[in-house]
């Protein structure tokens, strides 16, 4: 397959490096999320370096990595909340602004002030604002949708409670309910299991599986290595660069985890500790 040097077209085709702007072969309209050559930098320090990442439809993906690996940054950059240095993020093969209606976001619980004077129902109804439109009050219909979402996360009776009066787990469920009212097809969740009680953890896991069974896609920043295998079917091991990605059984190997946490010795030993009981429990 030697190409004549004179033809510019074939030269390009056999070139060893792909142009940054060429679409990946897996860039298809089927993939809810495809990230290509994404680099994000704060000042001069790269936080994410040339990330290629795909989330196929109907998948539950855990984004795993040590602190400062860029997990939240990845989600925020995908959602346009942080500027990209370079790279392309596409949803079903289209840019973000064309598909906002189909994407929901669950931010980190600590990212907002829970003393804010709103009720649980008020917060959940925020998921409907795009459908309600400018300057109009939240109508009965949308309030009902918000109530239904609260019921879905087992908080029907706490709708009127001020959000500071909720436990950490309940606050997390409020955020999930808000995402549910958006009736999206792709969900980004930033550490939904952080600091929640056992009952909430079970509720969220059920919810994730329900979403997947409905054919929805979930990308979830996750910090608990012991539960990756049981909660998720795909994972992305991240430490500024992509260490590994794919189905959990292929990508979530001891070797890959070690490479992800390399250089962080305390975290490494902690990781080894956590993976130990998990693998023995699953066998």
């Amino acid at each position: 397959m030697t190409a004549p040097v004179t033809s510019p077209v074939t030269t390009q085709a056999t070139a060893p490096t792909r142009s940054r702007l060429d679409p990946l072969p897996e860039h298809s309209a089927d993939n809810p999320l495809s990230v290509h050559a994404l680099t994000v930098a704060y000042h001069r320090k790269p936080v994410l370096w040339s990330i290629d990442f795909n989330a196929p439809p109907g998948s539950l993906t855990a984004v795993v990595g040590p602190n400062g690996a860029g997990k939240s940054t990845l989600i925020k950059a995908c959602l346009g909340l942080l500027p990209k240095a370079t790279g392309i993020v596409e949803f079903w093969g289209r840019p973000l602004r064309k598909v906002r209606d189909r994407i929901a976001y669950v931010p980190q619980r600590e990212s907002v002030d829970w003393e804010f004077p709103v009720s649980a129902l008020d917060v959940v109804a925020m998921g409907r604002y795009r459908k309600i439109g400018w300057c109009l009050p939240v109508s009965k219909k949308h309030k009902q949708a918000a109530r239904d979402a609260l019921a879905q996360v087992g908080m029907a009776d706490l709708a009127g409670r001020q959000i500071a009066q909720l436990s950490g787990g309940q606050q997390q469920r409020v955020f999930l309910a808000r995402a549910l009212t958006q009736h999206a097809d792709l969900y980004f969740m930033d550490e939904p299991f952080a600091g929640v009680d056992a009952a909430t953890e079970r509720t969220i896991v059920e919810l994730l599986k329900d979403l997947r069974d409905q054919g929805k896609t979930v990308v979830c920043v996750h910090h608990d290595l012991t539960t990756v295998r049981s909660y998720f079917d795909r994972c992305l091991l991240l430490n500024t660069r992509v260490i590994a990605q794919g189905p959990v059984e292929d990508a979530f190997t001891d070797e890959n985890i070690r490479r992800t946490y390399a250089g962080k010795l305390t975290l490494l030993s902690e990781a080894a500790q956590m993976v130990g009981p998990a693998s023995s429990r699953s066998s």
Partner: protein
Amino acid sequence: MQPPTPPTDPTFLSDLWTVLTLRAGFNTTTVIVGVTLLGLASGVVGSFALLRKRSLTSDAIAHAMLPGVATAYLAAVALGVNGKSLPVLLLGAAVAGLLGALMMHAINRLTRLEEDAAIGITLSVTFGLGVVLLSYIQRSPQGSAAGLHHFIFGQTAAMLPADAKLMGALALTALILGVLLFKELRLLAFNANFAQTIGLPVQFLDLALLALIVLVTVAGIQAVGIILVIALLIIPPAAARFWTDRSSRMVALGAVIGAGSGYLGAAISALAPNTPAGAAIVLTAGAIFFASMLLAPRRGALATTARAAWHRFRIATDHALENLYLAHTHDHTHPPRRQVIARPVAFYLQAARLAQRSSPVSDGGGGQSAARPEGEVRVTSHTRLTPTKAGLALGAQLRRNHLLWEEYLVTYADIARTHTDWPTDQVEHILDDTIIHRLESALEKRGVRLPPPA
């Protein structure tokens, strides 16, 4: 706010009544209505500014308006227009306010200075510039009559009905826009990142809030003055926040408090011409604020202090009961805690509470359920408490929960919950069985005597 005549003087009270019922002549009435509208609008806009943490930004914007007023006057005189025309001066103020906001934004973006530094720099530099321009105007031949210095402290006495109407119209515009954008501004203040992901133009909304702040400030600088107009934006919403946990009610109540302060303050100032209206309005708002801060039922200082004291007391009684249990069972596996029931007052308080308390430990303080005929301790002598059967059972449970929570927090500190009322919350209600078994065996291994579950 010292009235010229003692408040008990019947003529003062009847005068005040005349002013308050808007029968004190057309001028005074127009001013009072205008200032009331201003208070209404600033309560609404100020609520959003407070929630979005933009209150001090508003202060810098107000200060930046002084050079704007002065420049507008100079420009108008140079162009041969009436320099004292209020619309011209307020237009200058609005432009300068926006420039001040731009200056803060630029300092933030281009340097690593924190926001408070940017606010302080903008506020002082622009105000200094304003003072220099003002003294220049007053030294110039036609300047002494300008009366621009009234903009610093505010002056309602010199306001014409037309001025008051302009103020009212500006305030009304801000009020209507603020109410229309309620839902969007609230989301912006609560969770701007989320707002952006659902496609709301976050930067435009921040700009809209800024415009509303400028509108209210411009409306207020003649009556209340550049230095004090910020008070109308901060104090009424902050006072309203004590009374409610709903932003809708906070905005409404902030508007009512703002309007009330404007109305009362303007009336008092109308009767005492030497009292600047701005000061009277702000002091009225301040009085409402301090009353709210002290007396509000749930968030007020008295209520929260009482709650904190009650909480400390409850923990102390729980510890006392646990200690009684430990003494009773001669359990020395845990180093003994200092006796918390040493002081006589605490002793009687705790004895009274323990003897009265009849709720099971699991309900975490609150509803009294399942009344037991017997208290938890008996006072057997002046300095001795003897636990009853029920008290011992409760002490055992407290001991168990306490040990398990302690172990849990030590072992799993990184995923510890924040809303746990240990040792009162029963571990079994929150953690799952596997973790509890693990905690139990860890404690057992160290030889700690753990009471069995109830």
